[in-house]
């Protein structure tokens, strides 16, 4: 009897211990919903790099790629929520409404929506990156390195994210070189290597000697390499695709944020918030600077990078005028996040009209 008591006491202790451990290191499962294929080497690819970081941190992850921004998205989200996932990242703007709708049905599952602004339920958070900070650096480099004073810019779709990038790039380039002209070509695609290469070629043939891009493939930097002009990598470090042409790249670095948020779910500290991180928080990363850049420019870029990170410099510091000469941001002021999020006008110095 005595023995039995001890034994049951010990075994219940063991059991209790196991349960506690299990509760602390609760197996959090994270899911990711992608708009494109993970093989695009662009937007979705970088999110998947972030997902792998979560996996490396010891969590189980699932992903669904190529999910259309329609009723299909809801179906996928519901299925992921039903199959025991604790946190779901939806990585495209068009998932905004499906995410909020499904979040209402699953109050115990956390939802994280990239690049959106709707947080209708306490279990929905939003996050985005201040890529325009990276473009301030690219503009500074482009304005300094150009000899023809014509800079080409291959754009994708006329949405605030892209317009903001063009503006931030042009403002920075003008600051170091008031004579530059930014020529913009809309490719109306996020990735179609053939079309992107053709767009870049057209700009190069028209005298552009630095090409910036807001589309995803590496075709543009390769075309720049062939033509002997400069270019910048998009989303990931594209240096190995065009070692001579690529001066630097702006990388999307989602990993640290993803690991942070999944850990927060595991610790029970997750709460709703809106995150918009830039260079300072490491969500936007500037790759190594090419040695073709003069050392004073390299020093200038490094300082600018540090100042953007610390908040000492803001990409949109007044006075900023639009194309018609109307004041957008007054002298000494900086554009607030609301203005940045809805930016749909070009600043002075950008040529052409925004496609309607």
């Amino acid at each position, binding site marked *: 009897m005595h023995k039995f008591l001890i034994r049951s006491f010990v075994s219940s202790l063991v059991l209790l211990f196991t349960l506690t451990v299990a509760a602390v290191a609760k197996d959090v499962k994270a899911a990711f919903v992608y708009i494109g294929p993970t093989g*695009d080497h662009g937007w979705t*690819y970088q999110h998947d790099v972030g997902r792998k970081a979560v996996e490396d941190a010891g969590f189980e992850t699932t992903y669904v790629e190529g999910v259309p921004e329609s009723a299909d998205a809801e179906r996928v989200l519901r299925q992921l929520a039903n199959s025991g996932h604790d946190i779901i990242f939806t990585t495209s703007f068009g998932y905004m409404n499906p995410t909020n709708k499904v979040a209402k049905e699953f109050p115990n599952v956390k939802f994280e929506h990239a690049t959106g602004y709707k947080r209708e339920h306490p279990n929905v958070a939003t996050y985005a990156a201040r890529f325009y900070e990276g473009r301030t650096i690219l503009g500074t480099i482009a304005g300094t390195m150009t000899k023809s004073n014509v800079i080409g810019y291959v754009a994708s779709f006329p949405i605030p994210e892209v317009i903001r990038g063009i503006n931030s790039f042009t403002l920075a380039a003008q600051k170091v070189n008031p004579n530059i002209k930014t020529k913009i070509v809309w490719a109306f695609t996020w990735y179609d290597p053939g079309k992107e290469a053709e767009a870049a070629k057209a700009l190069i043939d028209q005298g552009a000697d630095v090409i910036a891009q807001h589309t995803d493939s590496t075709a543009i930097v390769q075309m720049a390499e062939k033509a002997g002009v400069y270019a910048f990598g998009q989303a990931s470090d594209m240096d190995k695709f065009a070692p001579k042409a690529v001066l630097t790249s702006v990388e999307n670095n989602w990993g640290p944020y993803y690991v942070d948020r999944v850990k927060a779910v595991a610790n029970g500290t997750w709460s709703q918030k809106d995150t918009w991180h830039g260079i300072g928080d490491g969500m936007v990363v500037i790759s190594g600077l090419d040695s073709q850049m003069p050392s004073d420019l390299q020093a200038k870029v490094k300082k600018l990078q540090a100042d953007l990170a610390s908040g000492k410099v803001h990409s949109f510091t007044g006075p900023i005028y639009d194309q018609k000469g109307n004041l957008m941001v007054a002298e000494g002021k900086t554009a607030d996040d609301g203005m940045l999020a809805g930016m749909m006008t070009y600043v002075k110095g950008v040529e052409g009209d925004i496609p309607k």
Partner: protein
Amino acid sequence: MIVDINFVGLIIASIMASAVPLILASCGELITERSGVLNLGVEGMMIIGAISGFALMTVTGSLIIAVFGAMLAGVLISTIFGFLTQTLITNHVATGLALTIFGIGISAMIGKNFVGIPGKEFPVLFEGLKDTIPLLSPILFGHSIVFYFAFALPFITSYFLKKTKIGLIVRAVGDSPESASNQGINVRFVRYACILYGGAMCGLAGAYLSMIYTPQWIENMTGGRGWIALALVVFSTWNPIKILIGAMIFGGLTIIQFHMQAIGVRIPVQFLTALPYIVTIIVLVVISRDSRKIRLSTPSSLGKSFYKDN
């Protein structure tokens, strides 16, 4: 505005480079269709060619193995189509669509390990002559061997169909498989051969994209060019020379609209991007409006299965 003559040459050269995959795939599909087989799997065969070429180039390091491997991959995948439509007598349209879906899926699967790897430089011919003649130099010199082959292909195809006995047999099989069969022609064999040839050309078109035009692999990199190639075959009324014209107009307008944007022409950009599709169709319809000729050049048994055989 002073137009630099070499600038015009550069533009024409880039138009021709962008037309290459369309010409290759269309001329291949044209032979297939002339034998009476409608293969809607062009996009699928192209993307298989693209990944096979890129993968072989990366793994073996040999451009020759890669180019021929891509053609062989096109042949292999079109063998599936041939077996289904010719031996099992399945519906051409459904099988072709399935082939495209299959091709896109399997290329993505194989391609997982090849994303983010830069391609190798493909050698060009007559590089040294690039600055010799104004206007013509950039058009004539400094291109890959596939480029020259593509521009010879429509003429070879035209000659083959009109002047050779085998070409006549292909046309006979496409127009009236019953009569051809009664003449002792093995209809199924001829159709198989034409399907495999179409596969090889689509494979080469894909390899051109992933190895020469934009040397890299990303999913769906053919970007619908297979469908445009298919449309070119129909709108050119199965005439290889008109395919060449159509491909040049399509490629040309795609590039010229980018130039117009860069110059700052005030035309809605959406209209400019739709222009290549609209104008190519209009031009081809206009130059092919002779209904008697259309009837003569349309393969009468296109897309119809042939049951009887010797």
